[in-house]
Every structure is written in C-alpha cells, then in structure tokens.
C-alpha cells in the first residue's frame, strides 16, 4: 500500500513535471521560430513587422555600398521579381558576393531590412537552400504571368 502510494506520487510528479517542461519548451519554440520570406512576399507586405525573419535571394549586382565606418553595408536582395534594401553592421561572410546567393536574418521596418545576421554559402558551388527557393518561387510566379504578357507582345 505504502509503495503504491509512493509510486503514484512519483508518477504524478513526473507527469506534472513533464507537462510543465513540455509547455515551456513549446512556448520557447513558438516564440523563437524564424520564418523565411522571399523579397516578393516582403514587398507584398506578407512579412511580419514585429518579429525577426529571414529573407533570401541574390545580392543585386552593383548594389553593395559601404558607409565610411567600413563595417556598415547596404545592399539589395532580389529574387528577380522584387528587390528589397538590406542594411547590416558587421563583417560580411567570405562568400558574400554581388550576384550570388545570400540569406539575411533581421527585421523589416517597412522600408529597409535591418539584418543582424548575414549568411552566405559555405562552398563556391553551393547555394543556400533558402535563397534557391526564393528564386524558384519567384521564377514560378513569373512563369504563370509570362504567357499573357507574351500574348500582348
């Protein structure tokens, strides 16, 4: 009888403990998820203003400009349909290059994307999957738009 009581207490405590932990974990998870948006989605206003997210695409050629402090950079990220301006303070990764794939994480203030992290690929021949997907989505969207335009021409 006594051991059974103990067991019940133990099981009860364990269940409650696990419940609390699971709630905490899932809460932390939900509030720290970083969603990914393409430049097109950002321009359309689909991206949130109140939390950080990621944006990916190509660094537009000729768009990279540095401030005199040497560590603040401005560039534009494009998915070949839409383009958004990005600003970042810090050293850019080795493989950050104009015309190449990039993923930036930060916040959108309705006019410029303020990045706190810029990721490029790890390898010359390798595109960050997010950047690749942004281009793909934009290309698909354009494809569906192309026929009527062609018809006009």
């Amino acid at each position: 009888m006594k051991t059974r009581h103990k067991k019940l207490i133990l099981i009860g405590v364990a269940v409650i403990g696990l419940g609390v932990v699971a709630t905490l974990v899932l809460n932390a998870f939900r509030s720290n998820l970083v969603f990914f948006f393409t430049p097109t989605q950002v321009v359309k206003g689909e991206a949130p203003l109140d939390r950080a997210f990621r944006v990916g695409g190509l660094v537009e050629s000729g768009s990279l400009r540095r401030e005199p402090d040497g560590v603040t950079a401005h560039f534009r990220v494009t998915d070949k349909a839409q383009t958004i301006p990005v600003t970042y303070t810090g050293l850019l990764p080795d493989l950050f290059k104009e015309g190449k794939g990039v993923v930036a994480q930060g916040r959108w203030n309705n006019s410029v994307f303020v990045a706190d992290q810029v990721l490029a690929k790890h390898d010359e021949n390798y595109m960050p999957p997010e950047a690749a997907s942004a281009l793909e989505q934009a290309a698909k969207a354009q494809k569906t738009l192309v026929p009527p335009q062609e018809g006009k021409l």
Partner: protein
Amino acid sequence: MIPELGHMALILALLLAFIQGILPLVGAARNNQVLVSVAKPAARAQFIFVAIAFGCLAYSFLTNDFSVLNVTRNSHSRLPEIYRFTATWGSHEGSMLLWTLILGLWTLAVTVFSRHLPDDMVARVVSVMGLVSFGFLLFMLATSNPFLRMPMAMDGSDLNPLLQDPGMVVHPPILYMGYVGFSVAFAFAIAALLSGKLDASWARWSRPWTTAAWSFLTVGIMMGSWWAYYELGWGGWWFWDPVENASLMPWLVGTALIHSLAVTEKRGSFKAWTVFLAIGAFSLSLLGTFLVRSGVLSSVHAFATDPTRGLFILIFLLVVIGGSLLLFAFRASQVGLGGRFALVSRESFLMVNNILLLTATGAVLLGTLYPLFLDALGLGKISVGPPYFNTVFVPLVAPLIFLSGIGPLARWKQVNVPELAARLKWGFGASVLVALLLPFTLGEWKPTVSLGYLLSLWIVVTVAIGVRARMRTGAGWSANFYGMNLAHLGVAVTVIGVTMVSAYQTERNVRMEVGDTVTVKDYSFRFEGVKDVNGPNYSGSRGTLEVSRNGKPVATLHPEKRIYAASGMPFTESAIDYGLTRDLYTALGESLDGGAWSVRVFHKPFVVWIWMGAVLMALGGLLAITDRRYRASRKKERAGA
C-alpha cells in the same frame, strides 16, 4: 587499377558483412556452435577488406589520380600531402568509408577484448554490428561509390578551404569513433533482447565500451567546437547549428546511458530503460551521420543532394530504428525492471538525471528536425536559432548539473535525507556566498554569472566532499570512482568557460588604417598593415596586429585573408593569442579603400576552459574504463568457465 581493387574490396566486404550479420545470429538462436564460430573470422576479414578499400582511396588521393571522380572533386595537385590524405574523408563517399572502417575497427576490438564473454553473446553482438556494416556498405556501393571513374581530369577542384586545417586530420576520425562506438552498446542491447539475458554482468560488459565511445564523442564534439571557433572566423564556439546538434543529441543520450548503465550494473534496476537508451544513442548517431552527410542540412559538412541517397537513408534508418524498437517492444518485458528503490536515493537522482538529459535531447531534436519536416512537406521554410536552444537548454541543464553534485554522495536504495543535508549544508552555503560575490570582482554583476559560478563551485565542493569521505574510509584506488569525479570536474570547468565567455566577451568590428589602434579590455591592437602572402595552393594578404597591454607588448598576430587558387574561394584565417584567462581573437574582414581593412577584434575571457573541461570529461571516462572491475570479472569468469 588501384581504384578497381578498392571497389572489389568493398564488394567482398559487403559479402563478408552479410555472412557476419546472418550466420552467427542463426547459430546463436539454434545453438549451432559451427555457425557461432563464424562471427570472429568473418568480422576480422571484413575489417581487412574495408581497410584495403580505404587504403586504395587514400592512395588515389595521395597520388593525385584525377581519373577518380571523388579525387577530382575534392583534391588538387598543389594541395599539401597531409590534406590530400585527409581529403580521403573530406567527401560524402569518403566519410561513409571512414565510418565503415571505424565500425570494423570497433568490431575487431570486440572480437579481441571479449574472450571472457559467452560465445553466443559475442556472436550476437558481432552479428548485429555486421548487419549495420552491411547496410553502410550497400549504401556506399549503391549510391555513394567513392571509386567511380571519370575521364582523366587535368587537375582537381580542390578541397574546401575550411577543411584544409590540422584540425580536420583528427576531428572526423575521433568524432566517428564516438558515433560508431555507440554501435557496440547498441549491439549489446540487441543481443540482450534477442537472448533475453540481461543481468549485472551484461551491464558490466557494456559499460567500458559505452564509456569509451562517449569519451571519443566528447573529444570529437570539443574539437568540432574549437575548429569552428578558430576556422570559421566568427569567434563563436557553439552555434546550435543542425550539424552540431546532430552530434550533441547522441552525446546527451550517451551521457544518460552511462549513468543508467551504472544503475543496471550496481543495482540491477533500469534494465529495460538502459536497453532503450542504448538503442536511442546509436539511432541518433545514425540520424546524425546521415543528417550531416546527406545534404539535407546546409553546412560545411553537406554535399550535393541526391534523391536516391535520401530514400536509401530513410529506409535504412527506418529498418534499424524501427526494427530495434519493435524488438524492444516485444522483448523488453522479459528483460525485467529490477530492484526497488526509495523516493530519495541514488537511483532516483540518476533517474532525474536521465529524464533531464532526454528532455534536453527532445528539445534539441525538435529544434533540429521540425524545420526539416516543414520543408519536406512543403509547408514553408523556417529556422530555429540560438535563442530557442538557449532558452530551453539552460533551465534543463542547470538542475542537471546541480543534482550531479548530490547524486554521487547519495546512497543507493534509500537516502537518509537529514544526514545528507547535514553533510552538504556548509558546502552549499559557501558556494552560494562565493557565487553571489565573485562576479562583483569581474566587473558587472549578472545573475547568469552567479548561476554559472554556483553550479561550478557546487560540483567542485561536492566532489571534494566525496573524495575526502572515500579517502577516510581507506577504500583504496577505484578508477571508476575517480574517473567519475574527474569527469564531473570537467563539467565544472566547462561551465566556467561558458559562463565567462557568454557574459563578458567583447566583440568589435572596426575599420582600421595602418597605424590605427583599437583598445578592447585593456588590450591595445595596433594595425601595422598587410603584406602579400603565397601559400602552396592559395595567395592572399597577411595582416599584422601588435597587441600591447599598458604599454607592454603581449603578442603579434597575423590574421590572413586567402584566395584559394583552384576554387577561387576566399577564406579568412583568424589569428588568436590563446591564454588561460582570455583569448585575443583577430580576423581580417575586407580590404577597404586607402589600405584600410575591416578587422574583427575580440576579447574572449576563459574561452579555452570550455574545451579543457571537455578534455577532462573524456579523460575521466578513459580513466573509468581502466577500472579493475572490468578486468577482474574477466579472470573470474574465465576461471569459472
């Protein structure tokens, strides 16, 4: 010729693995001694052929055989010889071969060091490892053959510069020694489920193998972390990158397994649980290997994706994990639950340890796999960053570390709570007091710093109490006991490093012209400009930074920016002045106008403690393996047999 030889050797190894995986298992089930005796020679022969294949691949790399696709893609004629050798496992195919080679090595070790075990047990263990090896060899031959030929190329496209580093010589083999080492514990667990025999001696046999694998994994992860610190040029030591998580998960479960095995051996409890953990640790090792190597994750370790590979991997994981869990579900009830224990006892402390470790694993698993699932199902791309992991990990690990101080001092079966409290109250009071006051001397007081110091001091104090008590009883040397305490001290050291570097590091990114000085925490860094530098397969710029403190020179650092000739890939080589209480970390950013550069200048207090602690943990593990008990039992059983 040589690559074909390697290919042939792989095919023969596959056949031998099949024999090794089937016949002894059948023999053990039917009590057929002839079939049982196949296990050892088959395993040894399989190892030899895998070793031949590995040697052939290494030879192709060393001799620059650019008719081999793998060599062309991952090497270059001007790559230094040592990196041509390490390029052998720098690719997906090569790393799979290394994995299989190390699996063979562990199997060989089992055949050599288990003469004291019953033959049918060894046969089952070796068989299970043979089946795993069979899966890997089949995977390699079917989808990732490292010996594929191609029309002779002029030269290779070079090894990823990140991998051209002395760390890469040892990091992957050691990490794999850890990953693959859990296959022994896994095989023991499966053997126990198959035979229904799971007793204290089973736990005693599994323990040294598990601890050895865990020690290797600890060092492997530590080297990965250190490598990321100095090689990626960002000065971070842990990024919660999926690749790191993939190695952390088996480590967490492996840590739980080590502790649960202790209970199973000493008290006969937690039996089914131990088996479950052994299956879990190895399953996560497999998952980790494939996650990292299949290209599902974007990282340095990932290679181009190939859908057939992905499918094969999925099926393989399903068979291994699903099969063993199914076996577990059917047979675990026969294994039994073991002895009883009170609500407060060493068993219950270890149970809480296990629960916390597994919860932490679950949280890491969720954060690592959920984005992959969403992506695979086409539901959008998300990422889970460090904030999530930090939020979840600290509250789980802090009580874990705190309890790891009490656990070793608690009695098995039932704790006399007032007595234990009396033993610990002064130590606890002192730890709290010092932890609250010490941060004031370090600068700004922060709650996290106090928490870190409390945990660390608490471990040191409780280890001291435990060691003193043992010395008083005159119990004599016990490698197991001192190994455990050393490993726990390692945790304390790592906690200090993590606490200090997280709370007090200074990171500055600045534009520097020649002659400019930037001061970070009393240290002045004077930029002396850059010079051209030419390496064997790269060219670039080499900067000079004179570091001084209060006018006294401290170090001269030479961070480099390289361009690798074959790939055209730019690369940052950081320069670090290591120290026990601080690292001075510098890296070159980009060349700006007028001879100026953007430069990273970091001050990282106590960062080496993180890795020193990991080394202590691993040493503790290795020390524990030498315990006489594991050998004495061998003699005893041999005498009995």
